[in-house]
């Protein structure tokens, strides 16, 4: 028992699933390397650096926090992508730009409201220029107003897009819908660029910092992201498990025809899917800008691949998978800095996506169809 079993089990995995075994070895090496780095020793073997280096606990915690924050926002956005994937059965390439739309709607509202009393002309405020930047501690009511506008406004935009683009083609195959979503993505992104320009604007600033341990501080804006994201994720969980709508959505994700036969109003469920997905996408975009401080017309598009990675790693179609995958990908994106030069961390996140697809196409949470 015990060790012998583990060894035979390990040997079986190595023989039957070599890919998984390789990944396990790589992860084990990285963990050993991390431990050596934290201790501050370097292990040499025949003159070659085997592992080790140096890394302070403080900077590790900072990376963990950064990864967690980005991951929560990505996971939040991923819920909508995962739902449209399972219920409407297509990969929505416009989801990243929906995130941008929400961020712009929310931030323009909050920014203009915050600076109306100043003498800055309205046109500058509307273009997110020249005004005072917001922080949660300095103007929580305004930030909250922006959050609500981001959610509601994005829902309006997604419903309009569904009415104009996707509804006329409900019966089309998934590739046609995917191509249509590419069209939507281009149109949304460049409409935003047309209205707001292509520059990057700074809109949020740090109000106060809470020092947790040596070398690790969390800002008020980061706290807001943390709290809102966790609350929304719990809310989605309750909605899916406790309400009739949640049951209907899960049923439709499992088998649309069966759902229709049993009398579930599928068109209404589709609309609610867009409403929920849009609201979460808009909120996550708004919160990410709050955390980063800057906004640009293509930031959601750049984020899209990360969101896809989260959804696929978590197991596409699974909402809990999207949340967990988001946090995981966020952490990979951030922690990769320990081992890789800064230019390649994003590439590492995409590499994780490809590896997961190759080894376990159904995702880590795949097979457990929860929604």
């Amino acid at each position, binding site marked *: 028992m015990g060790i012998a079993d583990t060894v035979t089990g390990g040997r079986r995995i190595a023989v039957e699933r070599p890919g998984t075994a390789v990944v396990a070895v790589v992860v084990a090496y990285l963990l050993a390397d991390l431990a050596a780095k934290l201790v501050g020793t370097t292990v040499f073997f025949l003159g070659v650096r085997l592992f080790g280096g140096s890394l302070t606990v403080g900077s590790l915690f900072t990376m963990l926090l950064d990864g967690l924050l980005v991951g929560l926002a990505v996971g939040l956005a991923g819920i909508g992508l995962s739902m449209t994937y399972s219920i409407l059965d297509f990969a929505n390439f416009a989801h990243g730009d929906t995130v941008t739309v929400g961020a712009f709607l929310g931030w323009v509202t909050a920014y203009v409201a915050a600076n109306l009393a100043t003498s800055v002309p309205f046109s500058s405020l509307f273009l997110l220029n020249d005004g005072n930047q917001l922080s949660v501690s300095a103007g929580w009511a305004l930030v909250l107003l922006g959050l609500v506008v981001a959610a509601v406004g994005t829902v309006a935009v997604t419903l309009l897009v569904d009415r104009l683009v996707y509804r006329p083609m409900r019966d089309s195959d998934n590739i046609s819908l995917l191509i249509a979503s590419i069209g939507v993505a281009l149109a949304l*992104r460049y409409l935003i660029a047309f209205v707001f320009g292509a520059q990057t604007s700074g809109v949020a600033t740090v109000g106060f910092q809470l020092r947790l341990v040596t070398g690790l501080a969390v800002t008020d804006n980061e706290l807001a992201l943390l709290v809102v994201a966790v609350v929304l994720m719990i809310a989605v969980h309750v909605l899916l498990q406790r309400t009739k709508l949640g049951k209907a959505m899960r049923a439709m994700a499992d088998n649309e025809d069966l759902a229709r036969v049993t009398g579930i109003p599928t068109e209404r469920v589709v609309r609610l899917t867009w409403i929920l997905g849009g609201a979460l996408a808009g909120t996550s975009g708004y919160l990410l800008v709050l955390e980063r401080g800057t906004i640009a017309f293509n930031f959601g598009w750049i984020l899209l691949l990360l969101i896809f990675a989260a959804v696929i790693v978590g197991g596409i179609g699974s909402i809990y998978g999207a949340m967990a995958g988001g946090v995981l990908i966020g952490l990979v994106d951030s922690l990769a800095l320990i081992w890789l030069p800064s230019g390649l961390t994003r590439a590492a996140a995409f590499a994780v996506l490809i590896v997961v697809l190759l080894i376990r*196409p159904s995702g880590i949470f795949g097979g457990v169809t929860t929604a």
Partner: protein
Amino acid sequence: MSTADLRARLDDLPDAALVALFLVGIWLLLTLLAVSVRDGAAAANLAAGFVGSVTVLVGAYAILTLALNLQWGYTGLFNIGVAGFMAVGAYTTAILTAPADPGAGGVPGFGLPLWLGLLGGMLMAALVGGLAALPALRLRADYLAIVTVALSEIIRLFVNWGGVAEVRVLGKRFGTGGATGISFPAPDEVVADLVTGIGAPLVDAASAAGVSGPNVVNIVYGLVLLVVVVGSYWVLSRLADSPFGRVLKAIREDETVTQSLGKDTRLFKIKAFMIGCALMGLAGALFRGSAGYISPAQFRPAITFYVFAALIIGGAGSNTGSILGAATFAALLFYLPARLGEFFPTFGTSSPGNIVDAVAALGSLDVTPLLAFVLANVSTLRFVLIGVVLIWIIQNQPEGILGHRNDPAASVPLDRPSSPEHESGGEADE
């Protein structure tokens, strides 16, 4: 004449004539634009500039669209990593041909002749494509899409990374140049040498008409790209009509049936994918590297989606449709709107600096500021137009506006009773 009538007439034309007609039409349209905004020699030079640029664009997009058509139109492999394979081809060519001893600030390479570099680029793109196609064997169509787009970003981030800007392997120095890019002997320069050498009388004649030397080179380079298009078209058409091509079309229609007929569909898919990627690599070197310089920013995923738009406009599954789609996209959606925006008269109204001022003027019933603003931002708005056109086509003309071209999967004519010689059975298999 009704549109249906026009369509019927166009359908009767041979494919090559249709493409030629289209190109000449675009050239005439652009010349007309040049003549209407400039006079005399300036007009001739402007027109030559227009024609050269549009021909290069059309040629480059036609090669890319043909390659994508082989992968998606014929085999059903949804590749949205076109930009990545272009980057592999272009960078390999650049690294192979960059001079071994460049001046200060330059990135050293292997100093090979250009044709060898292009060949190497195609080979490398095919190899990377083969690797990328492996997951295609077991994944859903849209999973492959996500894998390829992620791969293309990994490639771009990698060549952008400072760590490989210049490396030393076994005493040999080479690299990608990182974010600043890399210079190499331009395909453009080869054409320029040709033009100024053999074609000197041509250049003299052109300069007498007011057309500058660089514009002549540009036009000739565009024509060279068109020759590559014709070559690719010939190869791909032969391929599509061969037993190999028929298996590809069979895979697209129903992979399980094809498998049950004893075809190793996985091998066919990989081969088709690799050939397509090789062509994309060539296009990457000839198009993005035409001026002898490439940088990572030229290979953003956006360019993949432009190629897709071109293919969908033309109609996937048809080689002629691909070329026509590429011409339509490059000339009418990508190039022309920007030029029109540049030269459209705004009647003395300068564009307001932002949209708020432009819309505010509507309050006093003045439309011109908004119009001027729209015209000043046409190069942004054309992407909205591309998106809308894409949606419209997918909804209303899924076969493409130039689709419905005759492209049967069988090599035996299906519309007339088979003669005795056809009854002797199917032709020899692969």
